């Protein structure tokens, strides 16, 4: 099956520091790819290059087999949802307005609010939180509201950036289960960036290990533990080598 999203030889440097040194990745339709790696290995930069928030120095991002140019980016973003590390809810808007951000212009406030309430219910948040501002939410609730916003337009591709960072193990397990269920239900392709191995095992079909700006290993989650690649071996087991 041809990939829905692909990066080819993606390269990005900041001054003398090379963050991405030729990253090749592909996500098939309906597949859940998890990108792992230590902090500072370029996971977030990779994400920003795909989204167009950073311009790669070389290489390509392909969407549905063709280069993701500036002209095609609006269409790509229309079928795209993202859960940010800190949820990134807009402080000046209420929870339902955040969730319905893209829908309000299209559907009007009444219908957009109904969809927002439905998506909030899907992530386990009741209508009582709809009119709160993000500052009134706990970390876990904000993550779930962010997840509701990510799925508000039934996207075909969803990105999850460190979805469990800052959450206690119980709330992290809840977010992992929600991600897994939503990706399965919607049939969307998912790319998750994390360094939490519980998340990898829960939500991933395939894993790519990023180190030194390159993909050192990629394969099925089930094959991960048996892999002998040193970066992956040490990362999974939390081994530090001076």
């Amino acid at each position: 099956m041809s990939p829905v999203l692909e990066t080819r030889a993606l390269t990005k440097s900041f001054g003398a520091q090379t963050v991405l040194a030729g990253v090749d990745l592909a996500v098939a339709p309906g597949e859940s790819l998890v990108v792992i790696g230590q902090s500072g290995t370029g996971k977030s930069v990779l994400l920003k290059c795909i989204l167009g928030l950073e311009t790669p120095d070389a290489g390509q991002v392909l969407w549905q087999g063709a280069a993701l140019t500036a002209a095609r980016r609006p269409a790509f973003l229309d079928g795209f949802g993202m859960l940010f590390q800190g949820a990134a809810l807009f402080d000046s808007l209420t929870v339902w307005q955040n969730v319905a951000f893209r829908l309000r212009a299209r559907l009007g406030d009444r219908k957009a609010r109904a969809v927002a309430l439905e998506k909030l219910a899907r992530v386990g948040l009741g209508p009582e939180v709809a009119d709160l501002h993000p500052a009134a939410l706990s970390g876990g609730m904000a993550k779930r509201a962010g997840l509701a916003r990510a799925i508000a337009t039934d996207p075909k591709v969803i990105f999850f950036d460190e979805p469990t960072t800052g959450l206690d193990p119980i709330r992290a397990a809840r977010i992992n289960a929600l991600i897994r269920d939503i990706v399965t239900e919607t049939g969307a392709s998912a790319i998750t960036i994390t360094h939490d191995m519980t998340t990898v095992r829960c939500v991933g079909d395939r894993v790519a290990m990023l180190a030194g700006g390159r993909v050192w290993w990629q394969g099925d989650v089930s094959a991960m533990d048996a892999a002998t690649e040193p970066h992956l071996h040490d990362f999974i087991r939390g081994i530090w080598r001076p």
Partner: protein
Amino acid sequence: MILTAPVSGLGRVVLAALRGTGRMAIFAARGLFAMPDPREFLRQMVQIGWLSLPVVGLTALFTGAALALQMYSGGERFAAGDVMPAVVAIGMARELGPVLGGLMVAARVASSIAAEIGTMRVTEQIDALVTLSADPIRHLVTPRIWAAILAVPMLVGVGDVIGIMGGWIVGTQSLGFTSAAYINGSWSFLESWDVISGLLKGAVFGLIVALSGCWFGMNAGRGAAGVGRATKYAVVAAAVGIFAANFILTGIFFA
């Protein structure tokens, strides 16, 4: 090598300054000519215009009152104390209303815009806007720029009236002017261009204030320190920009 080092260093500084100026000019042009988000524009009109009214009004009131005392005592040295109401009116309309009003808005609004947008930058809310197919310039920058361009002249106009009223209170309560003589003295020498030039200055100062707040906010560094620096630079740049623009505009309007 030793001889060329200072020249190449100077060249790097000049090139960096030119690059920065170019980036800011493009940013300003995009901010001015994008279609503003109407809801955000209305919210900013309230934030920048209505909520700045108390601070601008109080500043104008005390400035007008102090100016009346100064002009009367100075004028009395050559028996010209009677022209004080006209001097207060012209001084407020041409110079003190727009400049002090602009500075108070710079202190209140440039800092607030830079802090708000800077916080949005470091908490990835601006990246979130992009992923939600929303142009951050249209949603954040253009509404603030146009709200400031429209609201600051209104504040200047109200400030002019309040400043003249401050002079009137001092003039009638402690300097022996009758109310009718003071008002007549204010209006008799005031020309419409005095007021219009002040309002035009206000529009330019509004642009400077909003642009500094948005520029430094959008380019804020990481963390709380980054937002703090952005806020500081926004206020300083807006204040210096207002003084420089005031000098240039005064030259154009009255030379």
